């Protein structure tokens, strides 16, 4: 551990590699986390199948790229549309009945969904680790010390683009406005003639599409496997819990931060602590939030 810190101090150039890598993967985490913040905020559904949506998007991209020979990045719109439809179907089949139930129901129901999806992916695509090859190689910087996949920069750009598109959609489109109205007060929205059921369906489908897009990028910059969804879900929860619901800049900042922290913990503490770091961050964030709350709340103990 101390050896690793020494390396970082004596060869600062390696910090650049860690930070750039961290920011690029963090941007991808931001997408899935934003989707979670959306469904959580608008319809109060805590979607534990978030990571599985990501992985499913990745598999779709991989599969389309493999069968048609397309560049996986170009499959992004197709995957987003497919995942949108998929999300809508899931809403109609189960989420619709979960929306107005108690807090725990959505967690457990989507957990069930996550298990089914993992296994369905395993049965459909096999358990092997897969990668969608972008095929543009890496960018070498600082005399080869830092070498980053070109796709990571593309992913970073894509994330900004997608985030911008979603924000614009929320602000200016009719549906976006309806979504925001529903999230503020579903009853009032209903009174005003908004079909909240359709809004919920659209929100859930939009989340699914965003996750699918994130999955396409994940398939190109990391690797995918049917059982890898859990860490993505946990990451989304860490980010959203830290940032708060309905706070897009906060989600982006925490996501980028988490990306960088993960890289550093992997470097300094060792790869075995990479997942542990994410989970421990979640716990720390929760404890911190609770501490904040307890200063406001007056309770008998």
């Amino acid at each position, binding site marked *: 551990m101390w050896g690793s810190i020494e390396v970082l101090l004596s060869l600062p150039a390696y910090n650049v590699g860690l930070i750039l890598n961290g920011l690029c993967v963090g941007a991808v985490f931001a997408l899935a986390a934003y989707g979670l913040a959306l469904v959580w905020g608008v319809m109060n559904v805590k979607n534990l199948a978030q990571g599985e949506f990501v992985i499913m998007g990745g598999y779709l991209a991989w599969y389309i790229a493999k069968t048609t020979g397309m560049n996986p990045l170009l499959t992004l719109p197709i995957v987003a549309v497919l995942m949108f439809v998929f999300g809508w179907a899931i809403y109609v089949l189960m989420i619709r009945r979960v929306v107005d139930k108690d807090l725990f129901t959505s967690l457990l129901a989507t957990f069930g969904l996550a298990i089914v999806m993992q296994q369905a992916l395993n049965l459909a695509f096999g358990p092997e680790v897969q990668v969608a090859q972008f095929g543009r190689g890496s960018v070498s910087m600082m005399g080869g010390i830092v070498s980053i996949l070109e796709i990571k920069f593309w992913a970073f750009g894509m994330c900004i683009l997608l985030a911008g598109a979603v924000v614009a959609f929320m602000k200016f489109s009719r549906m976006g406005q309806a979504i925001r109205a529903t999230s503020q007060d579903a009853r009032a929205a209903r009174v005003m003639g908004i079909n909240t059921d359709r809004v919920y369906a659209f929100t859930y489908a939009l989340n699914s599409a965003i996750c699918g897009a994130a999955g396409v990028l994940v398939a190109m910059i990391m690797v995918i496997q049917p059982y890898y969804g859990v860490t993505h879900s946990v990451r989304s929860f860490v980010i959203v819990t830290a940032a708060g619901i309905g706070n897009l800049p906060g989600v982006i900042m925490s996501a980028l931060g988490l990306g960088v922290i993960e890289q550093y913990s992997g470097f300094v503490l060792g*790869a075995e602590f990479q997942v542990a770091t994410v989970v421990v961050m979640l716990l720390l964030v929760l404890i911190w939030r609770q501490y904040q709350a307890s200063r406001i709340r007056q309770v008998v103990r």
Partner: protein
Amino acid sequence: MLLRKLGFSVAAAALSMSVTTAQAKVEGDTIILGSAISLTGKYSTNGIHTQNGYELAAKLINDGGGVTVDGKKYKIKIEYYDDESTPARGAQLAERLIQQDGVEYMLGPYSSGLTKAIAPVTEKYGVPMVEAEGASRSLFTQGYRYLFAVLSTSEQYLASAIDLAAEQAKSTGKDPAELKVALAFENDPFSQDVRAGVMEDAAKHGMQIVIDENLPRDLSDMTPTLIKVKALKPDLLIISGHSKGAATAARQIGEMAIEVPMIALTHCDAAKVTEKFPEASEGFLCATQWSPTLTYSDDLFGSAADFEKLFKETYEGYDAGVPYQSAQAAAAVMVFADAFERANSFDKDKVRDALSATDMMTFYGGIKFAEAGNNIAKPMVLWQIQDNQYQVVAPPKWASHKLVWPRQAAGN
């Protein structure tokens, strides 16, 4: 009243569990072998390789008439349960196979961890188990009498890679003790046992371990580890983490243009790295239990190359090569068939004694069990990926090609 009814229905349900009475281990003209195998979970890639191996051997033996015991021909049938890659489940399923399904001969699961959980069960009931996928040395120090493994134990996986590195250093006028070694091993029983073996071998040559990482189960990104490799410039990088470890490593080594002169892995073939990452994987050293280029042969499959050909024809998705996991699984079934014929009986203990006296040649190599149950008649070999083909470069006795050193830098 109502609760009483409930109680009865529960009892009835429990009773119905016992209706599926234990079948005999030999039904009519069929010998039933049992196996818990990983069809889901983290080991499922290799679980399926293993299952395919078992099935192909059983099919071939049956097509050839079957196993002759006491003048009668018997077919082989294998019953599988999915152990979900978890040792606890594996142990339960072994109990179930033996106690409820009446299985009296077991084939092993995939991975050392699962085998560690199942071996105490088979031992408890005195059920002979021939396993093909549990290489951990600790399996062979417990005095198990009913456990037989056709594969070489884990400390041998990468020993020859270390020796090669040392030789190479000597030939270029360097002292092996100057060599810096980087290790990245998955945190699971098998990989950690391989690591222990590598540490011993490296210590023998006095090499310095500069990186010693444990990789997590859900490994999808090893960038930090590889940045460390870039910074510390080791002479030898060793990675082991089943199929996903090999795939992730191969991919990111290429992407990050890691220029280590010698890189050794396990499970290259099971992860299909030559197919998925042809450029990045060039020059990798890969530990393998078996290679289709070796000259072994038997009457059932023919030569090692014949086995590979038949396997590729039978199963889809193996165009880039047949993993050794499948080969050794097939060999395990052959060992059982051979033992039945020699025991000329279905008595568990007679079969066990016949297994223990096994001394046969197969396409997979010689098989002869030590007292502890491990196979001592077969060496591990080391491949190097040259021009996208697996070529044996060590040990010298089996080498068909010369080592290319340093490996050409991958990527661009």
